[in-house]
């Protein structure tokens, strides 16, 4: 009796979880299917399957804005995400090492300040940072977005410090006996052992930068040559003109591909990163 009850409950539970999950991914599936739909039919269809399959949305959308195609926009996004991720991971690992292994006075205060900046809302700094970069003459380039990445990201520092703290100090000691300096220990012991946390940080950094909208909106808007995919999509769907929705959804789908690929191949790192530090995805 009890087991039967449990079985029914288990089936019901799976049905609920699956059904709710389907509702969750429905908008995404709908977008995917809409990218194969004839543009003027897109919003007259409640179901998923296109009324007639139309593959021209992809080449149409790829043609882009003015003379710049999506090759350019994807290239910009990749370059931006790659360079800033590289900077963020490199610098954050250096800083985390200092917090984890350093012994200098003031280290704890610095670490507390770093944690404080974690709670400090980025958008509160929007205006002053803008004005500051403006006075540096950096507005209209990617510099305001890329350069700060080379000075560490609080989330990543936090993640890596935790990770490095878990690396046994005996390893440092024995390396020191072998003649390794503070620098040597970083390069030979800590970095090779913290690769998983570097990967996690790198993946998140990449996704966030890939999705970044506000940054490019403030600093590189207007010049289609510099548009990342996010801004290109925004101009594409400009509410004051009529939008080719089929082409828009086609490009939207492509814009989500990197995140989905990362999700598929690196799920483990993402889940670990989120579970241990609360990085939001």
């Amino acid at each position, binding site marked *: 009796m009890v087991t039967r009850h449990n079985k029914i409950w288990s089936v019901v539970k799976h049905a609920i979880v699956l059904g709710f999950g389907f509702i969750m991914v429905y908008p995404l599936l709908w977008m995917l299917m809409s990218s194969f739909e004839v543009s003027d039919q897109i919003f007259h269809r409640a179901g998923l399957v296109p009324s007639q399959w139309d593959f021209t949305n992809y080449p149409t959308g790829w043609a882009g804005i003015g003379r710049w195609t999506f090759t350019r926009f994807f290239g910009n996004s990749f370059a931006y995400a790659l360079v800033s991720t590289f900077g963020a991971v490199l610098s954050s690992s250096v800083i985390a090492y200092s917090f984890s292994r*350093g012994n200098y006075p003031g280290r704890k205060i610095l670490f507390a300040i770093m944690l404080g900046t974690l709670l400090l809302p980025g958008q509160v700094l929007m205006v002053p940072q803008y*004005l500051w970069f403006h006075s540096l003459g950096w507005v209209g380039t990617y510099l305001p977005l890329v350069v700060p990445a080379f000075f560490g990201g609080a989330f990543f520092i936090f993640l890596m410090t935790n990770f490095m703290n878990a690396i046994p100090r005996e390893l440092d000691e024995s390396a020191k006996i072998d003649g390794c300096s503070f620098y040597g220990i970083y390069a030979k012991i800590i970095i090779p052992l913290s690769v998983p946390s570097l990967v996690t940080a790198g993946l998140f950094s990449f996704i966030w930068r890939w999705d970044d909208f506000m940054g490019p909106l403030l600093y590189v808007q207007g010049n289609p040559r510099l548009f990342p995919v996010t801004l290109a999509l925004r101009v594409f769907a400009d509410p004051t003109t009529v939008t080719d929705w089929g082409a828009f959804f086609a490009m939207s789908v492509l814009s989500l591909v990197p995140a989905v690929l990362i999700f598929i191949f690196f799920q483990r790192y993402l889940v670990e990163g989120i579970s241990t530090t609360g990085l939001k995805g």
Partner: protein
Amino acid sequence: MTAIKRFIYKENVAGVIFALPFIIGFLAFLVVPMGMSLYYSFTRFNILRPPEWIGLENYTRMLTDERLRESLFATLYFVFAAVPLRLVVALAIAILLFKSTKMMGIYRAMYYLPSMLGGSVAVAILWRRLFFSTGTFNTILGVFGLNRNFNWIGDTRTAIWVLILLSAWQFGSAMLIFLASLKQIPETYYEAASIDGASSARRFFKITLPLITPTIFFNLMMQTIAGFLTFNSAFLITGGGPLNTTNFFALYMYNHTFAWGNAGYSSALAWFMLSVLALITGLLFGTRRFWVYDGGFS
């Protein structure tokens, strides 16, 4: 030369050298801009021309700024609705998923995917289209013979809920954190409770919930701060309208700076926001000892 070399190889010096990127970045990209913004908050400044000192005028203006009141109301409404909704859904699903191990991978993927993609411009614009008067949401309602042609993002009562729904939809990362912390609860606790004959509801309220309060607190904290600073969705989906019901604080500041040429006033607004957030974070920490279980799992 060797003196320098010896100096930088001193362990303390090396430690500080490694911390330098943070120190420099902190000064250059945080302290300096904050100082500048403090100064600007006492000026009239339209970005085009040099700032002009006006004392406390920007701060007194806030007292009578009706749109600021509307914007604060919208922001608080959003935070108080979206954050608990997100956390409750995340926790509920985490508990449902917790034990179903075989399908775990698929479930986790289904629920986490929206969080992963939800921050993108593509999804925000998709959302906008879904809730239009000619949008898919109405088309689906039409299948059931319900109201068509209603513009969900244009009505003062529903617009903010479209954004709340988008935010709740992305509960995946909170869910993962809950899952991780649920897994840390030792099985023995439940076994002991079962032997005592505790019902599953009782087990949830007496064991599970208290033990994950630190996680709930952590999630609440992060999500509240993120909620207060919501910008993209309002900017891309509703533009702050109708009637400022979705004119979130970050968007209001953005408009003052970049659309209306009041960078001075918006600097003052930034400082105001900073104090509000500090206050709320402080309050949250203050309530901590009343409901967060600190005992650990031992």
